[in-house]
């Protein structure tokens, strides 16, 4: 696979007591690829994200980025390597302005205030929040907060962005905006790893889909194949209705 030298997850596991939240998961991501991760609630998707960005240390297994084992690195060190992320429950910096939220990301590569502000303004433009730059992030709507988190990640000029259910609670137009934005950025070479429940979005996003269930990687393949697999439909749809 071409992604061998970009992001490689090799048998990553995370246990909480007896619970195997992530159980020996392996997959690769190629540079500039968009990969979606789907699976029922509690499948371990967010835990997997936390392992990738360093919020949680893995119980066992390896995570390689450009051939380097990043397992021991803390979140901020991984950010420096090029990891950007959003959180499932949005984590905006509520007392700062929208622009300043972007600046906090932009400071990763820009020391001076004006440079960081310019970079942040660009990122806000991309997610359509430029008009709200002066508002307090705490005053934003849910949809705007999610976009702001994306903007903060983009301002870091990342090589791979992890989006954790970034569409949840957004309306149709907002969803469409984000899909377009992801495609624009992806055309510029940024890879995406996306946790998503909305299968329409998954289809629009990615050529490749990973299905997780009970901490394990259930299926991996093209969107067409995976989404028509009866086992996947049962695990996914069956569990979701339950």
């Amino acid at each position, binding site marked *: 696979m071409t992604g061998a030298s970009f992001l490689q997850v090799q048998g990553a596991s995370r246990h909480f007591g007896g619970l195997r939240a992530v159980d020996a998961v392996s997959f690769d991501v190629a540079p500039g690829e968009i990969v979606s991760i789907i699976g029922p609630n509690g499948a371990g998707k967010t835990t997997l994200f936390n392992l990738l*960005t*360093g*919020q949680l240390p893995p119980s066992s297994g390896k995570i390689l980025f450009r051939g380097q084992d990043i397992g021991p690195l*803390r*979140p*901020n060190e991984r*950010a*420096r390597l090029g990891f*950007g*992320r959003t*959180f499932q429950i949005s*984590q*905006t*910096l*509520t*007392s*700062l302005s929208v*622009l*300043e939220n972007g*600046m*906090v*990301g932009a*400071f*990763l590569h820009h*020391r001076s*205030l*004006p440079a*960081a*502000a*310019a970079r*942040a*303004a*660009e990122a*806000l*433009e991309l997610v359509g929040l*430029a*008009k709200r*730059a*002066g508002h*307090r992030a*705490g*005053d934003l709507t849910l949809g705007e907060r999610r976009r702001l*988190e994306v903007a*903060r*990640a983009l301002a*870091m000029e990342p090589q791979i962005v992890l989006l954790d259910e970034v569409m949840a609670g957004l309306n149709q137009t907002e969803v469409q905006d984000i899909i377009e934005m992801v495609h624009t950025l992806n055309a510029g070479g940024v890879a995406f790893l996306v946790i998503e429940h909305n299968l329409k979005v998954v289809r629009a996003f990615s050529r490749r889909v990973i299905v997780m269930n009970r901490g394990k990687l259930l299926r991996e393949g093209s969107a067409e194949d995976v989404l028509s697999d009866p086992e996947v439909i049962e695990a996914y749809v069956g569990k979701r209705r339950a």
Partner: protein
Amino acid sequence: MSNREQRLAWRKTGGVKTLRHELPVTFGALAALGALVAAMSGDSFTLNILASTFLFAGLATAWNVIGGLGGQFSLGHSVFFAIGAFTVSNLYLGLQVSPWLALLPAALLSAVLGVLISWPVFRLRGPFFAIATMAMTEVLLSLSLYFDRFTGGSRGVSIPFRAGLQNMIFRDRLSYALLMLGFLAVCLVVMAAVTRSRLGYSLQAVRDNEDAAAAAGIDVLRTKLAGMAISAALTGMGGVLYIMYVRVADPPTLFSLFDIGVKMALIALIGGIGTIYGPMLGALLIIPLESWLRAELGGSIPGANLIVLGFILMLTALFLRRGIVGGLKRLWSRPGAAKGAGR
């Protein structure tokens, strides 16, 4: 994106205040206070109050670097205050080093100690951090009473009156008021510089959300330690000036939880946590009010000033969480924006 487009995007944001934009405001505020001192230059009672107002304004500003910007509510800053005071008393009395020169080692020692004791304690969040800093005060107070060679034990230290600029001891109150104004100036400029810098934004990001800050590439622990070092260094300098001003102090006074540690935090809260000028405004309100209360009621009702302060503290926590500065800002802005301002 082209240069022109970048500039366009940049203009749409309304710009960000840099230190160069901030300093004129800072010096304007200091000039106003200087004018106040000049106007009162004949009145040594008022000058005394101004001197301690400026001292506490500076201390609260120093606390604000880590407490306000960084959101680490230390109640143990009296430790650094005392370290500064004992550094100068030992250097000046023992080695005849001028207190002016002692400012530097006092600041350094406080910063180093700040980093060393905060390193483990910064793993704690919120009230637990506050409790640990309180416990730290107890530990260092009892150690300082035990190692009385450096601190004079329970008798404390006293510095003989030898007036002279090089000794930082003056006959007139005007010099002390100006000295403390100078301290406030240093603290304000440092606070302004930190606020308008990457470190300032990192501290605020850490305060708002540690996970998000780390995900954005901020080294959370290092950011907190940097903020604590700066805050402790300034507080240590305040301790130097304090002991040269009062010339007699014992460990319980210098390590006092209420009169130093909590008071610094309280003044910053009332003025406006995390703002550059809030702590200064808080001190301008609280210190004169307190000395007035003590003069008016202290004789007839012991502790009346602290009752009033306690009520102010509770009311501020309930109704004015962003302090005087936050309240003023809310009045300024549209009523619609006021909803979120309380948070």
